């Protein structure tokens, strides 16, 4: 077990090495270097070429590319992730300030989509080819086809402007930091993001439930005279759960990526909004480091899912 987990983490290292190299390449590819950003354009004319060269060599910028990469990697390992080109704030500070908001939103959305999706999927499978089943599958198709941002905008019009149930955007009113106080801010974006992710789960759990209902063990359970709900839920659904859990594992990248557009529409102060701002202003260090963090999170999350499935499913061996 321990060696299985260790091995998973060791597999991570070459991957992270390559990704960090690509990320560094991305930073280097942008025109200009740190010195160009440290000196304002009007001062640039007054600084002599020797002084510039001096600055570059103190910063290590005159060294060959591979050397600079390893210096950067060393800084990374020590927790120095670089600085914003505009404000000079450390990237790690920016990420740490915005990540909790994003995780709050996307974990809520993941919960909503998983619960709603598997409930609706099982419901349609049990009532296969009924009106409700067909209506749900058409609703699911529309849900996949409608752009996430349009869905968000319509939700704002209906629930914020017409019904006035929720505040217009943001994460909390000034001074309201307790979770219960800012709960009303979370509800609408989380539901919008959650529902836009529900259709996939619904389709998948309907299919795996149908598959499981056709199996012999379900027929056996029924022939033993068990009540129908017990046959469906205890014998059918339990086995249908495993592929759904795998699907949720695949959706983990969405925890970060899926929220970008919704955060922007609801002015949710998360990683996504910060990232979009950096993309707009060509703030390469931030863009690249957010990319790096999101890959890191995705890879760690997928390891956790692997370990969890190995624990849950006794057929998987630790080797």
């Amino acid at each position, binding site marked *: 077990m321990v060696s299985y987990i260790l091995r998973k983490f060791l597999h991570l290292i070459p*991957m992270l090495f*390559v*990704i960090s190299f*690509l990320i560094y390449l*991305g930073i280097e*590819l*942008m025109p200009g270097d740190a010195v160009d950003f440290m000196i304002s354009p009007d001062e640039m004319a007054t600084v002599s070429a020797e002084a510039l060269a001096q600055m570059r060599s103190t910063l290590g910028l005159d060294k060959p590319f591979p050397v600079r990469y390893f210096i950067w990697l060393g800084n990374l390992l020590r927790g120095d992730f670089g600085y914003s080109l505009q404000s000079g704030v450390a990237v790690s500070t920016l990420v740490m300030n915005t990540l909790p908001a994003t995780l709050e939103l996307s974990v809520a959305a993941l919960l909503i989509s998983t619960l709603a999706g598997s409930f609706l999927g099982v419901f349609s499978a049990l009532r296969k*080819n009924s009106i409700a089943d*067909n209506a749900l599958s058409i609703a699911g*198709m*529309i849900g*996949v*086809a*409608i*752009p*996430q*941002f*349009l869905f968000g*905008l319509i939700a*704002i*019009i209906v629930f914020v*402007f017409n019904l006035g149930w929720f505040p*217009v955007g943001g994460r909390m009113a000034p001074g309201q930091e307790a979770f219960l106080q800012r709960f009303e801010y979370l509800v609408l974006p989380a539901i919008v993001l959650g529902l836009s992710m529900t259709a996939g789960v619904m389709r998948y759990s309907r299919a795996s439930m149908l598959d499981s209902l056709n199996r012999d063990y379900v027929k056996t359970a029924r022939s033993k005279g068990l009540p129908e709900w017990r046959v469906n839920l205890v014998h059918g659904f339990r086995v249908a759960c495993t592929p759904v859990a795998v699907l949720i594992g695949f959706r983990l*990248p*969405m925890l*970060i*990526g*899926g929220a*970008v*557009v919704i955060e*922007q*529409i609801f002015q949710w102060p998360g990683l996504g909004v910060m*990232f*979009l701002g*950096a*993309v*707009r202003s*060509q703030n*390469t260090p931030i*863009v*690249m480091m*957010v*990319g790096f963090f*999101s*890959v890191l999170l*995705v*890879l760690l999350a997928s390891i956790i899912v692997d370990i969890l499935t190995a624990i849950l499913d006794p057929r998987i061996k630790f080797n």
Partner: protein
Amino acid sequence: MSSKALNKKMDMLLARELAGELSHSKKSRTLRKLHANKLAVIGSGIFLVILILCIFAPLFTRFSSTDVDLRNRLSPPGSVHIFGTDQIGRDIWARILYGGRVSILVGMGSAIGATIIGVSFGTYAGYKGGFLDAMIMKTSELFMSFPQIILVLILVTITGQSLWNIIFIFVLTGWPSMYRMTRSQMLSIREEEYVQALRAFGINDFLIAFKHMLPNAIGPIFVNITLSTAMFILQESALSFLGLGVPSNVSTWGNVLSPAQNITILRENWWIWLPVGSVLTIFVLAINFIGDGLRDAADPTQIG
């Protein structure tokens, strides 16, 4: 050889499905199957109507999508401008039609580009296996470990915004899933006897992979082309809506929608976002219907 015959049968079904013939012929098919095919037929109809409207846009509107008319800003739908005008007086209907050209080009172009790369890699590497396959597999894992939209936006930062850059980025981020799908198909076809026979005859690897094996994997590939066209159209609209996709002077469905980020326009000028949003959604829905119909037709377990 029986699998080849079956595949031929499937291909024929596929072709007839595309032509919309199957919806009212075959009585042997189940009711559910018929229902699914009906959706595919309706989908193809909507797809063609919107495609024709966009391609022959000048026939359906006398306005240009770029002419600014400051005296007619934000005018509601009426007899002159049937869907009204936007905040600088451009005709919305014209922008939807001309924007559709670009959005559909981005969607289809990227899907086809990603397919060509993914399928050629997948066909050859899936058949040959070995080092090449392992390398491409690792590369695709690398691409897939990024959340899609983050990767797209990183590439937008590096390449800058332009129509062709967006297509290039979509191709670059879209090929790995195509590759994996084709590869898994090839891995199962590789074990078939006819492939062993061809290999025993000493036929060139390229010929075996592309001429003899690829045609048997074509069904799922077509399903994937349609579904990724829909996905890229949605992605383009999201990027352009955020102002990070195709430059805003070019009309695309996402660019036409982007003024709706302004709360006042969102509340008071519904004609700016509702018509284009509906066209976009209906078009993507139609493509998904076609894709689902193709999937059912290509799935041997579902042929009645």
